């Protein structure tokens, strides 16, 4: 009999016993998933739970969780951060042009400053002697594909996606459209 079936049967039993025993129970289905590989453990513990409805934590033995029992968050104080960098208007214009983002008004700029301040918290971490990491794939092997044609020849499907096409070419406005200057916004 599978573990999930066991869980369903026990759920019916628990319902009959009463709501008092419900307290502090995570649904039995998720319990089943958590200790999927130790069926013996599961059955024995659940029966104990039925007979002795006590509160207990879900740190089950054989599963060393790194999640701490109490929150360990310490807010970073303002004086720990490096001095706040000013964002000149020229830089904002340049960013708008390079990244095509829009800071339409003062609120947008205030939001940007707050975001930069939030990111400054990273400077508090001591990275002495630690190499920077580019991505979590760093230690994977890069897959090398053989030089064989496998794709292409879907011009009609791609052209359907474009609003404007001329004889199987995509249509774009000529060159880059310059963004309106700050005064014109």
């Amino acid at each position, binding site marked *: 009999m599978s573990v999930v079936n066991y869980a369903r049967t026990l759920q019916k039993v628990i319902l009959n016993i009463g709501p008092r025993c419900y307290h502090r129970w995570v649904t039995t289905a998720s319990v089943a998933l958590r200790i999927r590989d130790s069926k013996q453990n599961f059955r024995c513990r659940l029966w104990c739970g039925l007979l002795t409805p006590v509160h207990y934590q879900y740190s089950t033995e054989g599963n060393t969780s790194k999640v701490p029992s109490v929150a360990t968050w310490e807010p970073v104080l303002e004086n720990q951060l490096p001095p706040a960098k000013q964002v000149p208007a020229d830089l904002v214009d340049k960013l708008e042009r390079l990244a095509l983002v829009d800071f339409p008004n003062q609120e947008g700029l205030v939001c940007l400053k707050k975001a930069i301040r939030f990111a400054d918290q990273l400077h508090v971490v001591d990275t002495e002697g630690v190499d920077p990491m580019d991505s979590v794939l760093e230690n994977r092997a*890069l897959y*090398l594909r053989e030089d064989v044609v496998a*794709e292409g020849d*879907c*011009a009609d499907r791609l052209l359907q*996606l474009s609003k404007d096409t001329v004889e199987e*070419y995509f*249509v774009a406005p000529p060159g*880059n459209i310059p963004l309106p200057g700050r005064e014109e916004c």
Partner: protein
Amino acid sequence: LTVHAQIQSITKLFSGSQVRFQAPPNSLVSFFDASLPGTLPVLNRRCVEAAVMTGLALDCVINRKSLFDRKHYFYADLPAGYQITQQRRPIAVDGTLTYSHLGGTRRNTLITKSVRIKQIQLEQDSGKSLHDDRRGQTLIDLNRAGVGLMELVMEPDMSCGEEAAAAVRELQLILQALGTCQGHMDEGQLRVDANVSVHRPGDPWGVRTEVKNINSGRNLARAIDYEIQRQVGVLKNGGTVQNETRSFDRKSGHTLPMRDKEGLQDYRFMPEPNLPPLIVYDRPSTAPPCVHPSQVVVLEEVRAGLPELPRARRTRLVESYDILPEHSFTLVNEDGLTDYFEAVVKETKAGPRKVIGWVNQVLLGLLHHHSLSVSQSPVTPQMLAQLLNLQENGQISSSVAKQVFQELWRAPGKTAQQIIQEQDLGIVSNTTEIHRICQKVVDSHPDQVQAIRGGNKKVLNKLMGLVQKETKGRADPVLVRSILEEKTS
């Protein structure tokens, strides 16, 4: 110089669509090339091998671990808004390109120079845009988007247009010999941008400008020389050179400022998060054992598979045929000329030095005059070999041989023998006949004979010319000269 060489592979760098020069628009485009959401890059093994081969051929240091980055800029032919390139750690660095060109007063001395290669990196090509100014729109064709390119960045070690053109020609020959790029500049497989700056000796480097839109080696030399003159002119007039991008107009030979480039671009380089580092292994034993051999690029194997480079070919020709380095330079420089030369030498008993004179001067001169390539030559190696054999046998003189060559070029259906018989160009070896003609010439020009007896030997050539005209060039020049000298002494 910044050179972009299109890698000769069947598929593109990061997607499985085909690479072909002319195809219906947007027919060789996969979902990744069109930057549809949800697509990821998958690196092509052949492109890695091509970059490593080129790096080894140019004596570069191959970085065992190289990283990919994103270079962001907005343009309609770059659908993703960024180009995947290798900026932080390219695949090969610190190489040398050794090139030669014919210089000196008579342009027949081989001058060898070298230019340092800063780096070789793998990157993606962008699509092609056709500008329709009349309707104010641009038509985009993404067939070329995503094709693998090798970007070779060279250090500023060259000082004139001729050197740059020679360096690019040598690079073209190397890439063609390796098979990594076909190197046709007119088809866009090899794109060269020149960065030019001038400064007085001893001063720091001047401001540089970038010259784009160059489509042949000759235009490269013209563009660079014009730009040097322009910058010198600006500085002499007290102005300053702007750091800008200029386009070369091949009709006028001038460089013009390009529109649509606003000052210095900030590309916001960022590591490519979808690609782990590219690792190249030294020997098969250093590769991790659990990895399949098709997933591993081994330097030793690539090095062993390198074909004969142009440099080695030139030395081999000089050593095996005992010709001058200048000759072998011309042979290797022209496509197919080496094979032509070797075919002639095999079939004729004339020495290689004589054959070289015929091939490099007579044949090449005619080919250039008619703008033909070696494969289009009307005179085949066999025909030339026959002609040289006739000359060696003493059946015709050297001046007659040149005449017969011209005839063969004009009417390739006939053989050399036929032409000689038809026009009665066989050598005149009857000494009495030659004596008679020489005597006639000497008698009819007494003042020249006086001058020769007086000590002016050059007039003898004029008398020889007259004798040759009489005999229609059929007399053996050595014999004629000795008889004339005897008569005028």
